[in-house]
């Protein structure tokens, strides 16, 4: 197993290095004049020239690349133009909010999607199955930014049941910083009032974000269960007198989930993508809304740093998924 994890980690390195090179290329090659871009929109030619000198843009490209590598090796992804702080610091401050939001969404999607998908497969071609099919396809076709606005309009503006935006009531001190996740921190400090506040704030963004994930989890669970039910060992289990409920919810479901674990990585990618728009709509102080701000203000360093950080997180999630896969299916790790 250790060998498997190690192998998986090493396989990721070339891709991450490639991403690193790609961001460098994007940074230095794509904009017509990176100095102008960095100096901001209303910079004078003198200011641009100063920036060019300061950043070493007058050096040859390979030298620039070495400088870039050195900077990143020191954990320096540059300073944000807007906040004037190191972008990595900005991002790490906002990361817990995004992690909390995506994790809650993913957990909700899995807890609801897996049973729904299984039931649809068990009641194959029943009314339930058909309704589920329509709902899941529809769930995947709804644009999350639009859905977020519609939910805001109904539940926050019209009905006033839930807060419109933010992660915590304005003016109140957030929970004591332990993990950075409000839901966890408030429970750890036993502040249930804070937990309630954090909870009502996360409902709308998390629900919006989970919609597409829920639909696709339900879909691939259904497909996986249907496929597994055709397997010989299910027929054997029936003939050998296993309980039907255990056949489906233990034996079939585990196999289907094993087959589907590799999809979770992709799902997470979709989740992060949607989080960009959803966070900015709900003013959720996470990496997604930070990225949107950076884009709208042409904060190049911040945009690229977000890309790199998301790449690293995404790779970590995919490794985690593969490890879980290997743990669930003993045959996987043994091939290595």
């Amino acid at each position, binding site marked *: 197993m250790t060998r498997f994890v190690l192998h998986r980690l090493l396989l990721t390195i070339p891709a991450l290095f490639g991403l690193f090179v790609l961001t460098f290329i994007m940074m230095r090659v794509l904009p017509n004049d990176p100095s102008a871009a960095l100096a901001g929109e209303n910079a004078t030619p003198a200011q641009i020239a100063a920036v060019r000198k300061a950043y070493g843009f007058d050096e040859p490209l390979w030298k620039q690349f070495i400088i870039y590598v050195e900077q990143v090796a020191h954990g320096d992804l540059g300073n944000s133009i807007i906040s004037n702080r190191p972008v990595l610091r900005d991002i790490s401050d906002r990361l817990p909010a995004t992690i909390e939001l995506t994790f809650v969404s993913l957990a909700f999607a899995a807890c609801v999607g897996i049973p729904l998908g299984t039931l649809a497969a068990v009641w194959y071609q029943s009314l339930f199955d058909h309704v589920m099919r329509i709902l899941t396809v529809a769930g995947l076709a709804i644009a999350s930014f639009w859905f977020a606005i519609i939910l805001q309009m109904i539940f926050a503006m019209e009905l006033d049941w839930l807060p419109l935006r933010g992660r915590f009531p304005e003016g109140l001190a957030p929970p004591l910083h332990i993990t950075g996740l409000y839901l966890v921190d408030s429970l750890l400090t036993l502040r249930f009032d804070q937990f309630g506040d954090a909870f009502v704030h996360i409902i709308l963004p998390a629900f919006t974000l989970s919609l597409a994930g829920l639909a696709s989890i339900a879909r691939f669970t259904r497909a996986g269960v249907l496929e597994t039910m055709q*397997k010989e060992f299910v027929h054997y289990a029936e003939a050998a007198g296993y309980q039907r409920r255990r056949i489906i919810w233990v034996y079939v479901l585990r196999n289907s989930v094993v087959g589907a674990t590799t999809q979770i990585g992709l799902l997470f990618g979709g989740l992060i993508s949607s989080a960009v728009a959803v966070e900015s709509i709900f003013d959720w102080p996470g990496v997604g809304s930070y990225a949107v701000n950076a884009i709208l203000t042409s904060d190049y360093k911040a945009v690229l740093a977000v890309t790199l950080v998301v790449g690293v997180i995404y790779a970590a999630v995919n490794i985690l998924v593969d490890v879980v896969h290997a743990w669930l299916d003993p045959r996987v790790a043994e091939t290595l």
Partner: protein
Amino acid sequence: MTEAAPRLEIRNLSVAVGTDEGEARILDRVSLKLMSGSIHGVVGESGCGKSTLMRAILGILPKRGRATEGNVLLDGRDLLTLPPSVFRTKIRGGQIGFIPQDPYQAFNPVFRVGTQLLETTRPKASGNAFDAKADIIALLKAVQLPDPEHALDRYPHQFSGGQRQRLLIAAALASSPAVVLADEPTTALDVTTQAQILKLLRGLAEARGLSMLFVTHDFGVVAQLCDTVTVMYAGQTVESGPVARVLAAPLHPYTKMLLACHPDRSAALSGIPGAVSSPLRPPSGCRFHPRCPSARAECREAIPRTSVHAGQQKVCCLLYEEEERI
């Protein structure tokens, strides 16, 4: 002729399965008897309804399948009238043990062998997991599995095909069943492994007094393992009797032709012309008549009755009905 009561008796069983193209009559008035403490072979080629017969006995017919007539009597009790819940808790993995065809496919690859072998004892065990485990390990010794103590903690792919089949045989015996159903348990194995398994089954049957219904397509396997045999063709039983008699002097034209195809018997490579008829549109009368060299005009219409020869050998063919009358 006074006969002892059979352990398992199939009486005039017909099974129909609904398909997109209409109703398929897979089994047509099948009858057979499995006597206590004996091994009864069911022989037939693909499409003869062997596996549907198995599923009917186990009460796991496909969704759109149902028994249209007849009985499945286990110790005199009709299984077809039992509610599904009783079937699951008392019959499958209880009074009837099952050995599947393909040991490579029958295990769920992501669960330990022990979890799966102990699953059948779950609903019945009165809370004593330790006992159940010890029982299974004793059975694993009985089926001559190497290293039985640690076998339960391993995964299926860590066993060879022959070992997996031994595990499945142990699973079938776990509930001390009244009847064991074996569905071609050696077809997927190599010939030397098949010989091992056949010997093991024969030995277990003798040591434990098993009553076993053994489905196969191979007359050779029947000759080595079974006491009595039933030959099936296209969902009908055509002949049955003691193995030695049926092999030495087959009566039904189909049995004769099928035996003639066996490598030990055939001189010329002829085979049986034609193909098994579709159960969607079975021929009227005797289902074998379109391929039968001795068929006559009556065979199209008349449903052949069973006639008994030499007290033991039963055959369903018009040729012998007449003989009996004369």
